[in-house]
Structure formats: structure tokens, C-alpha cells
């Protein structure tokens, strides 16, 4: 009975994480399109939401293991996963509040690492995995995207240099619709599947599913729906940062950033070295701005974003570890701790939602 309650809480928390993942990462897909007026804000988030939903069904390969190769798999219990998810959700909400794009996947890894550390000590965390699977890609993604977008925009300016602005803008805006669509599909394929993996593992750990089972259809549909709904709600604060606070972009820069970003993500995925969508697109936006003029990039904003990236793993780990300690205080297998934490979290979310609704919309199309 207790394990069934924990299972239900883990499933609900995983879907809540999936929702925050969607709205936190909407900016990656739509910010440049909204900024260059390739699409109206609501149309852009609707388009991204639909393609995120479709993307979740595109591949049957589920990223089944949470923080695989980074923490000892045998030590990951449902309570550790629950605490890790809460750590990731908390960090996603904090960075959203400050309008800072950060990696939801890194937040989840950080949360699970922190919870596993508190549960089993330092031996539970695989340092080599953290370096090879988190730190190196976190350095490669923005640097590579920066260089790619910078080179791309130089070529673009060179080629379309003397063309009439009208046809150039129309062309790059159409290109942005295609590249934004690819990004949204890729996001649904990668990120919704993480949630499917978490839920499937919890079902297997609880004995509800046999080991090695594929995710049931309801898991696929609910994960796809949660990420699509989150995307549609839209993390407007991050959209504003990514779309207009790092650089004021023209349509060529918007396409170079988004097109290069999509190409980097898919090329990396093709060779089996997945990179964070957030790190990639942020780096590409900075590169597209810096290649035109170094001072075009607001380096203060860029610096804040990089600080958030560095803090993601330790901050999510701190929350994940604390939540695990609170939950396990009632017993590792007890449902009381997760229930209390969930109730507090749900109450806080409801309070924030009501406040948010009373204050009206965050951003209009003109402000984007």
C-alpha cells in the first residue's frame, strides 16, 4: 500500500516536472521566432506545443535511466527519484522567475545526485560520469553553437548583403518556422522521453510492470500531454530574455541562431553525443550577435545565464538532498514524507498560480 502511494506521487511529480520542462524550454524553440516576428507569440507557443506532443511519439527509444552513469543505478529508489524531481522542479521555477534559461536535464541530474548523495553517501555519485556526461557537454554545447552561429551569420550577411530587406526578412522568417519546428520536435523526442523513463522505472521498481518493459501507452500519452501543455503555457520571462535581452536580433540573426542551434543539436544527436537544447540555443543567440558586433551582446545578461548554468547541478542537488532528508526522516519506505512534501509543494504552486492569474498576462506580442 505504502509503495503504491509513493508510486502515485512519483508519477504525479514526474508529470509536474515534465510540465515545467515544457514551459521552461519553450523559449529555446520560440524566442527567436517571436523576436523577429516570424510568428505571433500565441501562434508560436501553440505550434511548439503541438510539435512537442508529436515529437514524444516519434521515437520509441526511451531514455530509461535517470542520471544513468552518474549515480549508482542500484541505489536509485523511488524516494530518491521523487526528491530529485522536486529538486529539478524547484530549480526550474527559480530560474524561470529570474528569466534565466537553464538546462532542465541538468536540473534533474543535479536533483537525483543530491538525493543519492544524502541517501547513500559519496560512493553513490560517479564523478567520472558527472565530468564526461555533464561537464564536458555543458562546455561543448554553448561554445560550439556560438562558433557555428557566428560563422553562419557571417556567411548569411555576405550572401544576402545587397538584397531588398523585404524578401530577406520573409525568407528568413519562413526558415525560422522550419527550424523552430525541428527544435520543437527534437525537444519532444528527447525531453518527454525522460519523463516516460522515470515513470516506467518507477512502475518496474514497484512491480507493476515486468523488468525491461516498454512504457505503457498511458505513460506515453500523459508525458506527451504534460510537456505540450507546459510548452503552450510558455515561460514568457525566459522567452523575453532569450528573444530580446541577450541581443536585439534581425531576421538573419534569428535564423542563424535557430537554424545553427537545431543543426548542432541534431548533428550531436546523430553521433550519439546529446547536448542541452538550452545551452545550445543560448550560445547560438550570443554567437549570432557577437559576430555582427561584440558589443551587440549584453554580456551582463549572458554572464547571469552562465552563472545559472554553473549553479544548476549544485542548487538542484541541494534541494534534492534536502527533500530526500525530509522524506526519509519518516522512513525510507514510508509514504508520509513524500505526501507532506507534495502537499506543501501543491499548496505553494496553487498560491503562486492564483497570484499570477490576478496579475494578468506576463507578456504581450508587442513586448516580445
Amino acid at each position, binding site marked *: 500500500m505504502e509503495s503504491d502511494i509513493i508510486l502515485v506521487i512519483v508519477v504525479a511529480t514526474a508529470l509536474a516536472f515534465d510540465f515545467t520542462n515544457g514551459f521552461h524550454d519553450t523559449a529555446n524553440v520560440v524566442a527567436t521566432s517571436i523576436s523577429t516576428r516570424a510568428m505571433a507569440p500565441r501562434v508560436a507557443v501553440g505550434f511548439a506545443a503541438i510539435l512537442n506532443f508529436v515529437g514524444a511519439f516519434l521515437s520509441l527509444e526511451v531514455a530509461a535511466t535517470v542520471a544513468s552513469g552518474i549515480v549508482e543505478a542500484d541505489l536509485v529508489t523511488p524516494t530518491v527519484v521523487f526528491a530529485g524531481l522536486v529538486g529539478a522542479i524547484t530549480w526550474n521555477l527559480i530560474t524561470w522567475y529570474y528569466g534565466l534559461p537553464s538546462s532542465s536535464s541538468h536540473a534533474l541530474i543535479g536533483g537525483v545526485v543530491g538525493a543519492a548523495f544524502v541517501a547513500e553517501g559519496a560512493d553513490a555519485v560517479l564523478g567520472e560520469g558527472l*565530468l*564526461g556526461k555533464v561537464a564536458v557537454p555543458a562546455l561543448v554545447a554553448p561554445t560550439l553553437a556560438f562558433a557555428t552561429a557566428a560563422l553562419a551569420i557571417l556567411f548569411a550577411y555576405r550572401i544576402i548583403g545587397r538584397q531588398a530587406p523585404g*524578401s530577406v526578412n520573409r525568407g528568413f522568417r519562413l526558415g525560422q518556422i522550419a527550424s523552430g519546428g525541428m527544435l520543437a520536435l527534437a525537444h519532444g523526442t528527447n525531453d518527454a522521453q525522460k519523463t516516460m523513463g522515470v515513470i516506467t522505472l518507477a512502475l518496474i521498481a514497484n512491480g507493476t510492470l515486468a523488468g525491461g518493459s516498454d512504457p505503457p501507452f498511458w505513460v506515453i500519452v500523459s508525458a506527451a500531454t504534460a510537456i505540450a501543455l507546459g510548452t503552450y503555457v510558455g515561460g514568457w520571462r525566459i522567452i523575453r530574455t532569450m528573444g530580446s535581452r541577450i541581443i536585439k536580433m534581425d531576421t538573419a540573426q534569428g535564423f542563424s541562431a535557430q537554424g545553427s542551434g*537545431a*543543426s548542432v543539436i541534431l*548533428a550531436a544527436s546523430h553521433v*550519439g553525443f546529446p547536448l542541452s537544447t538550452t545551452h545550445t540555443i543560448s550560445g547560438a543567440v550570443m554567437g549570432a550577435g557577437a559576430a555582427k558586433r561584440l558589443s551587440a551582446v549584453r554580456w551582463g545578461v549572458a554572464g547571469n545565464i552562465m552563472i545559472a548554468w554553473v549553479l544548476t547541478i549544485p542548487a538542484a542537488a541541494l534541494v534534492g538532498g534536502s527533500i530526500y532528508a525530509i522524506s526519509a526522516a519518516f522512513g525510507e519506505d514510508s509514504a508520509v514524507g513524500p505526501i507532506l512534501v507534495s502537499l506543501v509543494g501543491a499548496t505553494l504552486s496553487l498560491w503562486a498560480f492564483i497570484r499570477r492569474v490576478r496579475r494578468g498576462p506576463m507578456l504581450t506580442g508587442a513586448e516580445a
Partner: protein
Amino acid sequence: MRLPLADSIVEWDLVFQVIYSALGAGVAVTIAVSFAILGAGRAADARRDGDTLDAIIFSGLFVLGLAACAAAVVFGIVVMTSKG
């Protein structure tokens, strides 16, 4: 010089493969779209000026650019559906 420890943790071959394939793909896609835009714009200008040969050449450039973009989109979807 590489550190032996780093060699055992980081798959450098994969990193370098990512760097050149991503760099190549990103720049190629932007160049393809830019040429498609250039081709469309210059073909329209040529048609307006009654320059049939230029109109054909730039229309061809437009089609080539567009075809390269379409190929990139298809390749991207194949990558997504076949990842594993």
C-alpha cells in the same frame, strides 16, 4: 597533451566528431537558406527586367537552396526517429 584520466572519461573522438559535423551542418543550412533567398530575390528582379537567362539561373539557385533545406529537414527527422 592529453591527460590519461581525461582520456578515460571523455570520448574525445566523439567530441571532435560532434564539433565538425555540427559546425558543418549549421553553416551549410544557413548558407542554403541564404542562397534560396538570394535566388528568389534575384530571379524576381531578372523577370521584372526581362532577363530570362538570369531568371532561370537564379530560379535554379532558389530551387537548389530550397532542396538542400528540405533535405536537412528530412535528415533531421530521420535522426530523431532512429536515435538510440
